[in-house]
């Protein structure tokens, strides 16, 4: 399909705004003006609308396809949220308004949304306080690592290392490194953290352990209480990566069991759309020990019920985002939590775990499942047996696209060869799950009889298999 630049016709116009009286050259010295107009597309409104409509048809999305992308929690995104997030009472609100004394009154509704969402997240996780500022999950991780650094600096602790298990979420090592820590990796045993390996890596230099629980194999960390005690015994903190919170709502609260810092992914657990890669939202919760270090500003409720921004936290790590977070995303998560309520959130986790286990059970005779025991909301299968016949995990993933399913996450976690990480979520019906299993079995049978057919998949997508090596070599990143 042609790009919008290829479709451009010189002199064609789309949405034309009002004509000003003066030209830029009448208002700004010539030396400060651009020499020629930007070579941007000249299209009619219909050209643009049709271009994007056609592009949209080249995408899989949750609304059209089963999307069992492990660790991404691709659940249904309720439509009423889109309607609420489009209310002009929110979209037209300038973020500097609450920083003006007199205009804070104009933003009470928005500040209440932030305050109430923080309270709800505290109750869901058992943490003491939240900041909604982090703009994505990885941004939450970085914020968490900065909080850990601030805590130890304040206490005069000279701690330089963060431990990341090999079964943790993929961004953890980079987040810890970017906050200035050395990263120590520990190997898991039987799919979960090995307390012995942890003990060997644990010394006075360790600032924290970043844990994903359930981990990226979908397994609950059975040694959790022991790990908490070990960490706290050397004044190291425990970080909870909330990428997989959808497994445990109502079953366990991370604050109750001893985690000190947690980030959540509102776009995963709380049903806000993933947007093709963003915007996300990665709120960070802390216990009492870490509360003084939270980023500013913080939303405070006065006794008379008014909300205002408070910057007076001398130990705060400072600004980590321009304002109060991705407000449009936060608003959807707030409405989602209200809609589901106590029982709805608990049920969501129960059915997410049921769906994953049901799929695991139905697939266990067809694919190798390295840790075949009760899993949480996701599980990992391996195509090692098929690979001996030349059909790799990536081939199976592409063949699933031909069946109309988005593929699971492939080749992550790194500790399982030829792996596919499957997360069905609670919003997919039994019929969809059964259909997926039937299609996968069909692919595996074909892989045995006619491996080449699967190796050459996909056949029905807008393009056939794409050459990623060529892209990296040629580096054509624009027109």
């Amino acid at each position, binding site marked *: 399909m042609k790009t919008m630049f290829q479709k451009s016709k010189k002199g064609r116009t789309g949405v034309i705004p009002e004509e000003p009286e003066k030209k830029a050259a009448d208002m700004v010295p010539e030396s400060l003006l651009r020499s020629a107009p930007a070579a941007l597309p000249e299209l009619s409104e219909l050209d643009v609308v049709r271009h994007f409509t056609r592009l949209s048809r080249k995408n899989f999305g949750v609304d059209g396809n089963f999307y069992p992308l492990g660790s991404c929690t691709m659940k249904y995104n309720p439509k009423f949220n889109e309607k609420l997030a489009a209310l002009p009472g929110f979209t037209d609100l300038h973020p500097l*308004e609450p920083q003006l004394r007199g205009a804070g009154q104009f933003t009470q509704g928005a500040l209440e949304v932030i305050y109430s969402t923080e309270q709800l997240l505290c109750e869901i996780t058992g943490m003491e306080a939240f900041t909604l500022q982090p703009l994505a999950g990885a941004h939450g991780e970085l914020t968490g690592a900065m909080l850990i650094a601030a805590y130890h600096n304040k206490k005069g602790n000279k701690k330089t290392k963060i431990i990341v298990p090999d079964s943790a979420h993929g961004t953890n090592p980079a987040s810890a490194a970017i906050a200035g820590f050395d990263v120590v990796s520990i190997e898991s045993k039987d799919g979960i953290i090995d307390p012995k390996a942890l003990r060997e890596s644990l010394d006075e230099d360790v600032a924290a352990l970043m844990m994903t629980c359930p981990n990226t194999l979908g397994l609950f960390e059975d040694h959790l209480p022991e790990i908490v005690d070990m960490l706290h015994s050397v004044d190291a903190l425990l970080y909870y990566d909330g990428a997989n919170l959808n497994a445990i709502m109502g079953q366990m609260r991370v604050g109750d069991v001893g985690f000190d810092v947690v980030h959540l992914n509102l776009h995963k657990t709380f049903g806000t759309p993933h947007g093709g890669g963003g915007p996300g939202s990665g709120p960070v919760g802390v216990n009492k020990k870490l509360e003084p270090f939270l980023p500013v500003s913080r939303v405070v409720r006065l006794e008379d019920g008014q909300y205002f921004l408070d910057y007076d936290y001398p130990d705060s790590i400072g600004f980590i985002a321009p304002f109060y977070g991705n407000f449009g995303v936060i608003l959807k998560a707030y409405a989602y939590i209200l809609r589901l309520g106590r029982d709805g959130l608990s049920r969501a986790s129960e059915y997410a775990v049921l769906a994953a286990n049901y799929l695991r059970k139905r697939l266990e005779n067809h694919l190798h499942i390295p840790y075949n025991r009760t899993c949480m909301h996701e599980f990992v299968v391996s195509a090692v047996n098929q690979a001996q016949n030349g059909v790799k995990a990536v081939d199976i993933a*592409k063949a699933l696209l031909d069946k109309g399913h988005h593929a699971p996450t492939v080749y992550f976690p790194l500790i399982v060869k030829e792996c596919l990480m499957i997360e069905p979520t609670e919003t997919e019906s039994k019929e969809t799950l059964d259909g997926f299993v039937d299609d996968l079995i069909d692919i595996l049978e074909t892989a045995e009889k006619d491996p080449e057919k699967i190796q050459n998949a996909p056949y029905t997508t807008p393009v056939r298999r794409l050459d990623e090596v060529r892209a990296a070599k040629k580096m054509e990143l624009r027109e």
Partner: protein
Amino acid sequence: MPYIPHTTEQTGEMLETLGLDNLRDLFSGIKEDLRPKSFDLPPTMSEMRVVQQVENLSQKNNTKICSFLGGGFYDHYIPAAVTDVISRSEFYTAYTPYQPEASQGTLQAIFEYQTAVCRLLDMQYSNASLYDGGTAIYEAAMMAVRSTKRKKILISEGINPIYRRILDSYTTNLHLELKTIPQKQGQTDIDALEAALDEDVAALVVQTPNFFGCISDFSHLFAKARKYKIVNIISVNPLLQSVLKTAGEMGADIAVAEGQSLGLPLNFGGPYLGIITCNGKLVRQMPGRVAGKTKDSEGNTGYVLTIQAREQHIRRQKATSNICSNQALCALQSLAHISLLGPEGLRLTAETCLENARYAAKRLVEIPGIELLNNEPFGHEFAVCLPVNAYEIVDKLTEQGYIPGFPIGGYYPGMENCLLVACTEKRSKQEIGMLAEMMRGAL
């Protein structure tokens, strides 16, 4: 329960497949002492009640006021077709295009977005977008630190103070030296910046229009800095780039911008759009996602995420950044906006903003006691000095439904009497006239 499709019968069948009696059995791995101490949340609500409750909250906000607030975030008109395009759920219910064959819509849009912002800023490469304009400055500075292996960052005080604070927080533990060169009456002090250049500097960070609205040409400064192999970083307003001297024309190595003014609503601070572009080899240091063109097995053109060897999922702790998402939908939104307006529409919008700002400045300085902070050329925003504390005026005028601008004193101590006034194309001459009359009355 909302959004859970399983009937009681189906739940029973699934449990039976697993050999379990009830859902609780699935969680037997979570021992009794790990169970929640409380889970005291409100009961499930109907969609109707939630909608009512949130609509009520939206009405507690007042967006009917006439506002001259800017400070880097602007109230522009967004054509209806922009909103319509991004409302297609094939875009918004997808995720990062890990399976390119099933994500060509998102990927081609990112490729086009990269092309559009490169052409607007006159730069060579763009990534798929970052969180916002502030974190983009931080990422740009880190690109410079990595590529030069130097530790010093020279930053103009004319950079948006919010962004400078973000940079402060992020670099706290990284053993870097941040040197801020003070502004002079709201002007970027180019001479002082030039005097501070040396072989230890990794990055020079400047902004135009700066926080006070002043436009500068940094061509000469950048040429000087290049002699020391310093990475020149500029933060620009992307809408005004349609008429003003571009980042590329000035010789920037990295250009960043907050993309909000390209079709994104103010939305109380987010989601916004971090634009980052660069030239030459710096692309290898680029953080986040990048889309590239390639061929499929039959020779057809297609798009994939590329040069991933920089990224966290491959490089782990040695990655150029921990970022694994982008603001894809916001990038798409800005692309729709750019393509609907076209070069002509963007230019006309920018010119109307400039014209309105000049009219406002003229009307305000006619009032005795009010003068411009400096006589530099400005964009669609300018600072005035008042005979009283700017907060006082803001307090008085907001009571009458006008926000006359942003008091600068909170971020620049000693400038308590200064007010930053922004004009977009949405402000009419009548509204600007009313603003002037109210200011006159309030003084």
